[in-house]
């Protein structure tokens, strides 16, 4: 192969490598963006749920024990999502170790939220209050599922 041909081949390889790099970077960007959005969604829904709990308690629609039960679930969400945010904050890209660390936080949390939906909300007597709290916890579960899907598990 002539010197010109070798240089052309080298250029082609470099161009292919660059293209691959760009595609990989764009994919990472999209994944991280979805995770960051879902983490923010969890916090926004949680803020609404806390206000809702306070309002329902003040109106006498739920008992202090109900607030403690649902508040306990929200506290779990707050702590775990805080840990997930701390990991995401430092990421330039989603490496395997961070993916695994995030999965270790999100999967048990999702299970806890689903358990809360099944067991924690059931004792709330007022049907409107029960529906409202269920809707908040369900929305949080949806956001956590999005994160779980992005993590590939």
């Amino acid at each position, binding site marked *: 192969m002539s010197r010109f041909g*070798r*240089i052309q081949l*080298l*250029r082609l390889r*470099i161009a292919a490598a*660059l293209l691959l*790099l*760009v595609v990989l*970077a*764009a994919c990472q*960007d*999209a994944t*991280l*963006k979805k995770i*960051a*959005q879902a*983490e*923010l969604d*969890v*916090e*926004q829904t*949680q*803020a609404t749920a*806390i*206000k809702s*709990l*306070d309002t329902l*308690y003040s109106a006498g629609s739920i008992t*202090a*024990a109900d*607030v*403690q039960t649902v*508040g*306990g679930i*929200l*506290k779990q969400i*707050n702590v775990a*999502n*805080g840990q997930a*945010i*701390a990991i*995401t*904050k430092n990421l330039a890209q989603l490496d395997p170790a961070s993916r695994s660390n995030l999965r270790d936080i999100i999967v048990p949390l999702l299970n806890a939220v689903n358990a809360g939906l099944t067991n924690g909300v059931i004792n709330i007597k007022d049907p409107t209050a029960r529906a409202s709290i269920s809707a908040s916890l369900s929305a949080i579960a949806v956001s956590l599922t999005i994160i779980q899907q992005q993590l590939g598990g």
Partner: protein
Amino acid sequence: MDPASIITLISVLAPLATNLILMLTHPDGSQTIIAKVQAAEALNAQNAKDLEALLSKTAPPAK
């Protein structure tokens, strides 16, 4: 230009090109991610305070 020089040049230009293409394909790209994470972090801290206040307000009286 010899191949080694081309590789050196490309290794310098590649990250710049990647960022440029990312900016063109994702106009709100990494800046949005940072903004979202920062917003989530601030809201997480606020939610922790609000939740603590609510749990204290409704805590059973100490025996």
